[in-house]
């Protein structure tokens, strides 16, 4: 476990930028800023124009940390308190879950909740609860 500092203002500002990105994508391309949907459309393309906007959004996302480094002088912190096998197992389970659940924190948690979609509200409540239970079990029951 790695302790992290409480950063309310920076997190609020970062959250507002996430929202601005979502609103800009809807205003221009008419699309939901959902990481799951964008990624799924990249690995299973339907046509070139659909594929190209997704890849461009992804390129923008990946540039994010580099722009932060240009401004602040350092890359954003990525502290990984879990093992490689947990990354692999967790990643695989996330992939299964978001495909059946049709969305993740960005698609359901931000874009869908902002539209007051009942499906997204139910999905978000569900995964927040199971994530909290999992973290509790991993850290305080299994002691990993």
């Amino acid at each position: 476990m790695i302790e992290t500092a409480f950063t309310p203002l920076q997190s609020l500002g970062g959250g507002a930028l996430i929202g601005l990105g979502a609103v800009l994508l809807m205003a221009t391309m008419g699309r939901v800023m959902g990481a799951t949907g964008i990624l799924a459309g990249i690995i299973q393309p339907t046509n070139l124009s659909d594929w190209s906007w997704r890849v461009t959004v992804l390129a923008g996302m990946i540039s994010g940390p580099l722009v932060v480094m240009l401004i602040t002088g350092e890359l954003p912190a990525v502290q990984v308190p879990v093992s490689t096998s947990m990354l692999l197992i967790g990643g695989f389970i996330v992939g299964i879950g978001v495909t059946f659940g049709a969305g993740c924190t960005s698609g359901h948690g931000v874009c869908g909740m902002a539209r007051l979609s009942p499906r997204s509200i139910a999905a978000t409540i569900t995964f927040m609860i199971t994530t909290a239970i999992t973290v509790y079990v991993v850290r305080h029951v299994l002691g990993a």
Partner: protein
Amino acid sequence: MRIIFSYLSGLLFGVGISLSGMANPAKVLNFFDITGIWDPSLAFVMGGALIVTFIGYQIVLKRPAPTLSSSFQVPTRRDLDLPLIGGSAVFGVGWGIAGFCPGGALPALGTGRIEVFTFIIALLAGILAAKVLKAAISKRAQAPV
């Protein structure tokens, strides 16, 4: 124009994820560790993102169409079903184990950290496995008895 604004949208999202701490699994997992080393920051990320998106969508979705595309493509279903709730529950288990979610991990690729690539490769494998599984399920459902 489509390229420029798609890129800018992704960039705003990626900078926001980076600043907010969503790209940092330690911070994400600590948010859920209420009985341990709790870091409530992520509630502020969700709050900031939701307020801006809610207000922005109110304005944008009143317009007849987006500026660079013919129509808004927004999910219209409102019913709750097993794949939605079951899938979301499963997603949470994976998120709690790895500490990355897709929206946090994609921008984190820009840091070049090997752990992010490890997660993304497993994520892609999971997505492909689920697609195969989904296709098999719907084929079985359609098959004549």
